[in-house]
């Protein structure tokens, strides 16, 4: 639920990176944090397990600059991808304005992508939001694994599995190398801002 501060001419919006465990959600935020240190007013917050997996969420406030005269800050969050942390995922989705679904291109992760996307739909419904109406971008991560010869899903398969009905923007990416990480972010910000621009 974006907050528009008419007094200070400021917008705060919440964007959540969702997807299966070890898919690269935290890596996306880490890359953004490295690339845009000057636009990020504080350190990245990560609540992790001792095994370095996301326990609650990662958090990164990101200063987008002025949009129609309003200083715009997007708050980037990740959710824990592991199946057992479903209650936590639902909490982080509260008040979400835009979503990046980070799918794992590894062939062995095909089923987990589908389960996680279905889980997103269910958890959004718990907040009375419809996956077909929320600003959403798909990212097919780990495309870099193709070169060392690790079996990955084709983009056609990923599109067919995940985007056949949604028909939202999608990007092949490598969060590790930074390929299309910024493009994904730009697109979800644009969709999110457009969704409430009529109020400005």
């Amino acid at each position, binding site marked *: *639920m*974006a*907050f528009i501060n*008419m007094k200070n001419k400021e917008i705060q919006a919440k964007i959540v990176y969702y997807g299966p465990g070890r898919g690269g959600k935290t890596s996306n935020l880490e890359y953004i944090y490295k690339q845009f240190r000057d636009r990020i007013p504080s350190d990245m917050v990560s609540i992790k397990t001792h095994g370095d997996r996301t326990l*609650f969420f990662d*958090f990164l406030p990101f200063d987008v600059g002025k949009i129609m005269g309003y200083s715009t800050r997007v*708050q980037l969050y990740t959710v824990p991808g592991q199946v057992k942390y479903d209650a*936590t995922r639902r909490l982080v989705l509260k008040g979400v*304005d835009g979503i990046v679904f980070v799918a794992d291109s590894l062939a062995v992760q095909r089923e987990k992508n589908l389960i996680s996307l279905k889980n997103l739909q269910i958890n959004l419904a718990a907040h009375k*939001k419809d996956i077909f109406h929320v600003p959403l971008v798909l990212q097919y991560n780990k495309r870099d694994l193709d070169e060392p010869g690790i079996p990955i899903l084709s983009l056609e398969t990923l599109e067919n599995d995940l985007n056949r009905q949604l028909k939202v923007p999608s990007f092949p990416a490598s969060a590790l190398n930074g390929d299309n990480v910024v493009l994904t972010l730009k697109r979800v910000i644009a969709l999110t801002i457009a969704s409430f621009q009529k109020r400005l």
Partner: protein
Amino acid sequence: MAPHHEKSMNLTEYAPGQDQLDKIEQILLTDLIASGVHCVLLIDFAGNIIAQGDDGRSQIDVYSLAALSAANFGAVEAMAKIVGQEEFALLFHKGETGSLYFSKVNNELLIISVFGKEIILGLLRMKVADAILKIQQIWKST
């Protein structure tokens, strides 16, 4: 995945007017900062900061504090439900020189007070309760 064609039922954004925000900030300053609270944030449960006040000396990363507080409060509410409670009314973290006090204003808003030894918890709770009543009245009219 079956499409749902009905639109989302709740508002996806809200915007209290300048006059209302001015009044809320004034309440935070006169009721809480003037009583010795170092920093006070009014946030929503998505972690957005709606209004804030501080004593001019506080150097807190308020955005991270807001995000963590919203999540923490949400987690505690979920724990309350697991043990059969609607909510835990008091949420207080005590440090050696600084402490945090969280208070629910309504189903949308939360107040976080950062305070030291200048104010005792009992007085703070009274002051926060007064501020909450006033903010509820203003928020109703947004």
